[in-house]
């Protein structure tokens, strides 16, 4: 909102602070071993939390790529998700995180992917309360953010991936995500389906390039064209697949 204000969008006349609701700002392990993160947890606490570091280091890494230390001290994980283009989103999508909302008639929960595809809270006046991520113990994770400089920069391309293999070296489960700039990060589900059950060969990897570019459908701006963003998203995801074959 602060950035939007700088760009000339005026602040809403009234703001209600939820900051004092302690329960919205804690991190805990749930009974099934997942990590539940309160939506008001500031990004830096989230990044450095021992539970996140130990059980979900890729999320810690992704949050480290958001803005600057000063912004991470104030910004929250919930805010980053609701922003719609936040840099924590790709990893949360790749890890198939769940969002919980406080609604008039109780708590409702949904996959982050479902929320992002409609970008609308599940009920009127719903408040995001927490984000739950399963610890990716069985598979491998990948995250990379590309901006026009090293840090404190809006993303040009952000990609993330989660991949689990079978004992026979075929892909058991895969979630690939691409976003960046004004592009809401999205799962590349068609590409994922192409890969499920298959062994990763050079040919398969090369054949995926066009599909990723098309499905990522990233749009461009005056600083980086659509074509560049799509190519980079494909390059990064394919290199990640190739490197940890």
């Amino acid at each position: 909102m602060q950035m939007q204000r700088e760009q000339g969008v005026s602040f809403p006349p009234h703001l209600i602070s939820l900051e004092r609701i302690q329960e919205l700002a804690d991190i805990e392990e749930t009974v099934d071993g997942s990590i539940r993160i309160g939506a008001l947890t500031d990004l830096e606490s989230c990044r450095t939390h021992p539970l996140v570091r130990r059980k979900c280091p890729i999320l810690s890494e992704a949050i480290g790529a958001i803005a600057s230390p000063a912004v991470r001290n104030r910004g929250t994980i919930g805010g980053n998700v609701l922003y719609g283009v936040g840099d924590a989103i790709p990893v949360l999508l790749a890890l198939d995180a769940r969002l919980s909302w406080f609604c008039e008639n109780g708590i409702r929960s949904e996959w982050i992917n479902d929320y992002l595809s409609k970008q609308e809270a599940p009920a009127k006046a719903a408040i995001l309360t927490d984000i739950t991520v399963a610890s990716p113990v069985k598979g491998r994770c990948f995250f990379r953010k590309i901006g026009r400089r090293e840090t404190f920069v809006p993303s040009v391309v952000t990609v993330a991936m989660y991949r689990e293999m079978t004992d026979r070296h075929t892909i058991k489960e895969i979630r690939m995500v691409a976003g960046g700039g004004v592009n809401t990060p999205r799962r590349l589900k068609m590409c994922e389906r192409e890969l499920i059950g298959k062994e990763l060969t050079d040919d398969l990897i090369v054949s995926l390039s066009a599909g990723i570019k098309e499905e990522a459908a990233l749009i461009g701006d005056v600083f980086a064209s659509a074509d560049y963003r799509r190519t980079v998203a494909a390059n990064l995801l394919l290199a990640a697949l190739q490197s940890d074959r």
Partner: protein
Amino acid sequence: MEKKIRPDGREKVTGRLKYLTDLTFPEMLWAKVLRSAYPHARILSLSTEKARKLPGVRAIITHEDVPALNGFGIVTPDQPVLCKDVVRYVGDALAAVAADSIEIAARALELIEVHYEPLPVLDSPEKALAKSAPFLHPGGNVLHRAGFQKGDIQAAFSQCAKIVEETYEVPRQLHAYMETEGGVIVPEKDGSLTVYVGTQHGFKDRFQLSRILGMPEEKIRIISSPMGGSFGGKDELNIQPYGALLALATGRPVKIHQTRQESMRSSIKRHPMKITMKTGVDQTGRLRAHQTTITADTGAYATLGPAILDFAVEHACGPYIIDAVDTKGLSVFTNNGVSGEFRGFGGNQITFALEGQMDRLAAAIGMDALELRRLNIRRKEDPGPLGQRIAPTNGALEVLESAARVYHAKKQHMPKRSTWKRTGTGLAVTMHGGGLGFGRMDPAGGRLSLTENGKVEIAFGFEEAGQGILAVIEAVTTEALGCKKEDLSIVIGDTAFVPSSGSTTASRGTSMVWHSLQRLKGPFIKQLLQGAAQRTGIEEEELSIGPGGIWKEGRCMLSFESLAAGKEPIVVSTQFDFPVSPDPIDSAHFLYTYSGVVAQVEVDLLTGKIKVTELHQSTAAGPVVNELGYRGQIEGGGVMALGYTLMEDVVMKEGQYATENLDSYLIPGIGDVPFQLELEAIETLPLEDHYGPRGVGEIGTVAVAPAVANAIYDAIGFRVSCLPVKPEAVLQSMERGILHENRF
């Protein structure tokens, strides 16, 4: 050499230092300036009626309220203070408001009604030069032409074994000083005006304001230091006229401090240039012919556009000796933001092109690029680039050899090849003129006094913009006199108390401080010792100046306080001109500094991103006055140049800024700065050289871009001709098949 903490260091690091934009006064009002909504339009009507009715608004000024000259500009005052009929860029001012708060002033701007008739927008030099283009100024759209010819260029080309031709394009760079333009203007009881606004030249601001206000210069006092950065950007007037007019209109102190967006919109920028170079060599690698065409986008108004073009023309063949040279430059008015003075002053643009040519030529004839440079580089007694006699030094060859050693060392220790990264090393050299050049008034001066309270007061009209002039003054004065820094009182940045020293620009500060002290120290020491001899009865010849006072045989005989007590202050002044060539060639420089840069880059094959991993600068600028200040200038200049090379570009679309703030106009962060920033200062000067230390304010920015570009070629075989280097272009170059391995 001892590493000294600069005099203003502690206050700056602890945040205690008050900048002029931090000042407040009782009864102070806040002002804002209404800038044009269009890059080019006729003003049909302008009404401030509604705005005046807003409670809290104390004054609104328009062109009708400018008492004398409605114009400013260091050389030609062609920029209206407040526009009357026409606006020529989106930074043009139409009105200014003083109110009880910033919010009221901002609201009042919204209430000012302006009706425009949009006119065709000339958003490129090509459009401005078209036959059908409307004239932006009475004399047409060409601000300035400059050129230099030597030898028979056509004949020389016909004898070349290889000719390389390329067009280089360089961007509009923002100074991005931390402190945006601003300050407070205070009307005094006696009818005079005190202007607390940062500038690089207090006396020039005083002159320009006097011309606008119709007020004698003596009634205007400019307090102008310290500044939170300038880099050339605050040499020209910015918000001073609006603050002054509003202070006079309201009789109250008026503060203006531009937001970053307001600054982006109205401030001057580095000239974007398109430079075509055609250069030929013979079979032995001798440069025979060099033809250059420069087109500079100077924006809506003149400011220092002509001088910057002259500088680029002068430096078109840099430190190389070439038989036939033909350089033509054109500076063109457009409806883009105003281009003006910026650290490097046209040298950065032309050096990027020239050093690009050198590497391309070397490749074309299969010669080592270093060898090609060595073969053609100027020697000590060679004339300067315009054929003028210059202060003879071996600087050019020395920086080349130093850079060559570094280059070879880095080539031998290249990091291991990784799957998705390629590393490359590149080199570039340059020479850079200091001072304003032949035929331009370039006076300097200083004053040294023993004050009544026993302080050795050293006064200059220079300004402290963060570059470290205070540290230079302290070091040079204590060394020249033999006293200690605690004995000194340094006075700068206030036209009421300082002598005229000329502008704090063109790498002239350090040099002129040193020259001043060489002139001042003799007579000053003599008067001090005479006085001390009278007081103590000791022979003058046995006395000398030391820490705290006058010494004899290792003992302090008389403190400065005692010497000064009850006596008229001792005052010694000097006035002289910056040294120029004995050859009367317009704009030609006499004192040059030299730089050799080696850069190492890492190219990401997946993203096309460039990371500069090492940057080494060899600088020849005479003796180092203050080691940390010198290093700060070269390293800081290097980082600024990395931004220019890799990311900085004030993008304009149809005369409007596409980059309105620092969220889209990016400057390097510490993560973009190579961990290995190295410097070799070459301090040697010929024995007969008596010009002392040269300034290094600009040289660290000049040859970085071509060194990085040459390193990129070394890494992936991509010839960069356009800055900033776009990852997109890098990636495309590889897709075109220059590099196939590991590609998808």
